């Protein structure tokens, strides 16, 4: 299952990409995906709780990711 993953803010700096296609072997929730990402990119662990969006909507950790979803890693926002 292919997931387009977007990285913003400090997550982009840590990962070194703003966008990446990630291949997942099985059905995955946002919570499981977060675990996968923090294992892959260990520095993400140092960041305050970040959020996720699926297809431009905030998603909770039990949200099931589907084929061709766009998942965005949203570090703590600081607009305004």
């Amino acid at each position, binding site marked *: 299952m292919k997931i387009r993953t977007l990285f913003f803010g400090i997550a982009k700096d840590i990962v070194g990409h703003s966008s990446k296609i990630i291949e997942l072997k099985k059905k995955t929730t946002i919570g499981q995906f977060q675990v996968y990402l923090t294992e892959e990119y260990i520095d993400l662990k140092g960041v305050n709780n970040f959020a996720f969006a699926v297809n431009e909507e905030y998603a909770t950790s039990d949200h099931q990711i589907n084929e061709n979803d766009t998942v*965005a890693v949203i570090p703590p926002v600081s*607009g305004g």
Partner: protein
Amino acid sequence: MKNKISIKITSKKLNMQTCYDLVSDDSSGGIAFFVGTVRNITKGKTVNQLDFSSYETMAEKEMKKIALQTFKKYDIIKIAIHHAVGELQIGDIPVIIAVSSAHRGAAFDACQYTIDTLKQTVPIWKKEHFDDGEVWVNTHP
């Protein structure tokens, strides 16, 4: 609702007069604004420059959600939510929120609700550049 809500994320300079013109209305009793300011000192260190980046399509959606919530919660006429992205110099304006209402109390309440919510939900990030490095605001404990 279309001409009652103005949402903008732009790399150009924000303009208060533009926002005034967008929300000004014959039936308005007045307009409440919030105008962000860029501080040149954070925790005692001089900020040389700021970068704002956004998840633009989602940020616009979130800003529109806030605008719609604001219309539900308060008796307002028009609202503008404009945010700058890219490189900002000290003195530049990162955000302008303008709300018109027949009753100024509602305009103030709606304006405050909008900036409070924007700071919590809209995917925009600020990076501060110092002489000795750079920091993504809010990202570390």
